[in-house]
């Protein structure tokens, strides 16, 4: 992955978050406070401005600054979580304008670790983790199996989607939806859904 692809990915995320903001907000209204779509749209709009106006020193730099922007602009639970994830991803990458597929896999793992460390959620808590973790597992497996980025990304997106959909039956134990107790079951988690959008965007921009 090079700087241009990183930027293309993030722009695709911004577009898809904007297109699906209402849908994310609707999911968040059902089991949260109805701001997830607006939060992420605000954040990725700021990321787009960042991408427009910055000379990046490398792929890692793109992600570190993206994470910082998300932390500064999103607020709520998702801001620090996604912000930390992108910062961790960026920091884990070796410096320079191009990184390898294993580098990227390692970076994505660092991102998940950051989410877990900050939010304390484990699989099954009905959070971002429930899409991110299977996506990462699929990505790593593909990389180990020798797949190229498009294939690894497509697998990750599929796994993220499955993970997001599987949150429907879960009872939330972290985040705002946890206040609902058992009433949170039957609804798809907004954060897991936006994680799916992020991996789907990577699959889309790398698709042959």
């Amino acid at each position: 992955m090079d700087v241009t692809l990183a930027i293309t990915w993030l722009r695709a995320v911004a577009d898809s978050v904007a297109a699906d903001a209402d849908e994310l907000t609707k999911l968040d209204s059902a089991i949260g406070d109805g701001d997830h779509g607006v939060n992420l749209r605000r954040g990725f709009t700021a990321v787009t401005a960042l991408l427009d106006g910055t000379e990046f020193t490398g792929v890692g730099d793109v992600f570190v600054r993206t994470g910082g922007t998300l932390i500064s602009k999103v607020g709520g639970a998702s801001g620090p979580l996604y912000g930390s994830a992108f910062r961790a991803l960026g920091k884990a990458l070796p410096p320079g304008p191009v990184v390898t597929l294993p580098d990227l896999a390692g970076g994505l793992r660092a991102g998940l670790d950051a989410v877990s460390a900050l939010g304390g959620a484990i699989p099954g808590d009905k959070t971002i983790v429930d899409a991110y973790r299977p996506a990462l597992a699929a990505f790593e497996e593909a990389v180990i199996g020798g797949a190229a980025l498009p294939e690894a990304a497509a697998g990750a997106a599929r796994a993220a989607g499955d993970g997001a959909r599987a949150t429907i039956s879960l009872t939330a134990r972290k985040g705002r939806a946890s206040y609902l107790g058992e009433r949170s079951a039957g609804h798809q988690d907004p954060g897991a859904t936006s994680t799916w959008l992020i991996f789907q965007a990577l699959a889309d921009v790398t698709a042959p």
Partner: protein
Amino acid sequence: MKKFINDPNDVVAEALAGLAAAHPELRVDPAERYVARSDAPHAGKVALVSGGGSGHEPLHGGFVGAGMLDAACPGEVFTSPVPDQILAATKAVDGGAGVVHVVKNYTGDVMNFKMAAELAADEGVTVETVLVDDDIAVQDSTWTAGRRGTGATLLVEKIAGALAEEGGKLGEVAAIGREVNAASASFAYALTAGTTPAAGRPGFDLPDDEIEVGVGIHGEPGRRREKLRPARELVRSALDAILEAKPIDSGDRVIVLVNGLGGTPLIELYLVYGEVATVLAERGVEISRRLVGNYVTSLDMAGLSITVTRVTDEMLRLFDAPVRTPGLRWGA
């Protein structure tokens, strides 16, 4: 959606501009998005900083002033503030004696304040955090996000703010804030959902004869729905839950807050307070002080919360101390 606004995206910024115009005694920083006492920092005084999503006014901006908060950080509507904002406010009011962050227990608020506290520490400002989690409608557990912070936030800010004002040390101010929170329990009912400017429609729909029991101040649905019952029964259920959750017994003295969530008229809040007074008198609990009004709101939600705080002499003394803020004022 019908609201007195211009563009839904500008609501928080424009309301802050209005707050600034209305209260020359406050310093509103529109770029960094915080509201501070214009006489802050006070050298040697512990500063109190709070914040959270907008839409709960007068919380928190309306509680900035002598005897209460030194600064407040309003986030977007129902969205916690971001670390930069909290850091800027923290640095702006730090008088060298440390800063207490009063944080309502929501994942987003907790994480953003935590990041800000770490950044502040990097810059040499000592921060103590008081987490408010009084909403006993939510089951408490180490495996979940825990209970939400609601009405007790006001009392924590008032009482800890008074101690800071009279020269309490960082540890003492934080300690009494935590004590107040530990001694507080809240329970809320909603008749309707609030409408955020961004969403443009109510956060949930309720049938014409149903209420949300244990609703949150961001329109998080409660734990269950029920048919509407007479106020007297709702009060009894809420107080049963509160007295069961916290060790408040016959002979104890309490502060009671009957708090409107934004769309409930004062006449109903007073009626409800009357019921609260009756029930607590039956239980032998003495109401030493009370507040009845809209303090911790949820936009235009029709609903109310009841908070009961078991108090010590020291808490009462600090509650009675002068306060001079847009939303709470006495003795000054």
